[in-house]
């Protein structure tokens, strides 16, 4: 049986802002878009701001209505990345295996480590204290036998909590938790679960597996399994980023298709540039489309792994044309790449045209690295 830690930095962006400017301590701090323009969303907010009903991903305009006296900051994103690396640096001293799930979340596998560190609960406190003392960052830790339960556990007693779900106690721990506490369940699914009378993970666990397979398909089965305490026990320790994406919230909602397609073209170029910088090729691309009434859809398509703007853009355009079906203005567009392969430098024999294009793309990447993204652009065919 494995012992997985999930370490989640509490209100991470806000905590970093407070290191930069201690005067923000104890105040409602909101990181995200500028409320003066009224567009965009809350990226993170302090616990003091949450008392006003704010939460991340909330439209900034709504946040400002609820908390007009809050301190609104655009944020120091490079600093967040530096502090995240510093946390990882501390964790690497102790954890045999680490998976960084996001800028502020880490899974660690401490299976068998009780022999070295003693009580893992006390060890988690030591880890929490070290991160606080070295970096002034509060965090919460969940300990369980798999990643899903560890993540739910770290969220259970925030901020600065430690929750250890003992083996065989998983079902008892999960049963009273609201369905919303399960990672990866969206608003629509929650609404549907509530409509069907499922409010807690216990409600889901107590129902037959077949029902969930029938009602929600593959996703339903996964929900049922997780509610019953199952989940992945293995970490992705290669430091692999799972996806990379770029989004654009328009200053004013857009109805002109031409403008939307141009935006998708630019977003694609940014994603592909990032792919090439990492020497990766994406096997899946996704489109995100948010209408002005906040109805949001994401659609994806598997492709032969590539980092070529043209292939990605053609796929995204195809997804967009098939899925932009309402005659409603668009608020946000996004392009995401995932399922990465490492780019192989070896060129294909006898594919001279393909090789020339690859070399051209590499040259563009280098030029942009030196002179900025705007320094060179592709022309878009109409």
């Amino acid at each position, binding site marked *: 049986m494995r012992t997985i830690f999930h370490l989640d930095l509490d209100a991470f962006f806000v905590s970093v802002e407070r*290191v*930069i400017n*201690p005067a923000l301590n104890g105040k409602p701090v909101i990181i995200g878009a500028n409320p003066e323009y009224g567009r965009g969303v809350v990226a993170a907010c302090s616990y003091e701001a949450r008392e006003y009903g704010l939460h991340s991903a909330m439209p900034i305009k709504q946040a400002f209505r609820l908390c007009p006296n809050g301190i609104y900051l655009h944020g120091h994103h490079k*600093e*967040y990345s*530096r502090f995240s690396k510093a946390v990882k640096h501390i964790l690497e001293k102790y954890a045999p295996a680490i998976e960084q799930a996001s800028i502020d979340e880490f899974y660690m596998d401490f299976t068998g480590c009780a022999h070295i560190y003693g009580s893992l609960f006390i060890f988690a406190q030591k880890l929490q204290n070290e991160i606080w003392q*070295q970096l002034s960052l509060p965090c919460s830790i969940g300990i369980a036998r798999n990643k899903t339960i560890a993540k739910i556990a770290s969220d259970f007693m925030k901020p600065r909590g430690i929750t250890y779900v003992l083996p065989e106690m998983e079902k008892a721990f999960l049963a009273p938790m609201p369905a919303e506490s399960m990672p990866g369940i969206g608003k629509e699914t929650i609404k549907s679960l509530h409509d069907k009378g499922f409010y807690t993970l216990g409600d889901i666990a107590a129902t037959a597996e077949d029902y969930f397979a029938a009602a929600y398909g593959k996703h339903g089965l996964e929900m049922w399994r997780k509610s019953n305490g199952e989940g992945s026990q293995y970490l992705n320790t290669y430091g692999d980023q799972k996806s990379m994406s770029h989004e654009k919230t328009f200053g004013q909602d857009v109805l002109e298709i031409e403008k939307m397609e141009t935006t998708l073209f630019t977003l694609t170029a940014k994603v592909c540039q990032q792919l090439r910088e990492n020497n990766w090729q994406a096997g899946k691309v996704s489109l995100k489309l948010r209408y002005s009434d906040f109805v949001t859809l994401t659609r994806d398509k598997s492709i032969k792994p590539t980092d070529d703007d043209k292939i990605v853009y053609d796929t995204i355009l195809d997804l967009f044309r098939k899925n932009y079906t309402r005659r409603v203005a668009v608020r946000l567009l996004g392009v995401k790449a995932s399922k990465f392969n490492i780019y192989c430098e070896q060129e294909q024999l006898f594919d001279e045209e393909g090789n020339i294009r690859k070399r051209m793309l590499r040259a563009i990447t280098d030029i942009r690295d030196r002179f900025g993204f705007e320094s060179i652009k592709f022309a878009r065919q109409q």
Partner: protein
Amino acid sequence: MNTPKIFVGSAGWSYKDWMPNFYPRAQSKNFSWLHFYSNYFKVVEVNSSYYTYISPNMVNNWLQQIEQEQEFLFTVKLHKDFTHKRYYGKNEISAVKTNLDILKEAERFGGLLIQFPYSFQYTSSNVEYLQKIVHEFEGYNQFVEVRHKSWQHKNAKTVTMCTIDQPQIGESYSFNPIIGNQTAYVRFHGRNVEAWKDSLNNFSKDLNYETRSARYEYLYSPGELIEIDQKIKEIFDKVKKIFVIMNNHPHGDAIANAFELLYLLKERTKIKIPPTILTAYPRLKTMAEVEKLI
């Protein structure tokens, strides 16, 4: 983890624009900047010695000003005749050594900083020249600073190659702690890429203080300092002494960052910080053991 002796300070102490951010505005007639400085830091790098041959009287005067401090060291930058002009003789060597000997005698000598320009690349003739200089000052602790990447990963047993943090332009040497002679000497020049590029366009022109200093205008962020702290601590076990010198001097940024690094390197033990700097850099408040103005 072994903790080596840590000396944190700045490159120079005599900057008018450190007032009122570090030195108080209201100063009595005999107020000594060096004396004030030595209340907070245990080392200072003498930079004026790079531009001029300092008189022994002046060195003796410095010693008087820091008399009350049990542990305070001077590191001295070698005159540019040796490193940039490469034109010197017996008199120049003697002028330098006289001052080093005064400091040595008083047990206040930290080392001699020999800083070469970016153009001084790793070639056999330059290695030979470096050896010649090292030989001229044998018997004195020596810190050698080179700025070109071609020297990266080169090391020497008898001298300490400096670790430097500088704007990454062209083939610049990047930050990576180096040890030599059981010592590390770390210099921070800031990361102001744009101003540094501008300064390259004005190279060798006669400039005023503001223009000349612009390239050093840079306040390291807390995240950058944390990264630096973690990297420096990785060599703690391998050295006996670490010198950390902040050269991002405009407005007192060097002083603010020196306090921050001192706090981080000393495992976040609260440190003595004057109220002047806390007013100018409020983020230092969390690390201060506040005291009243002297």
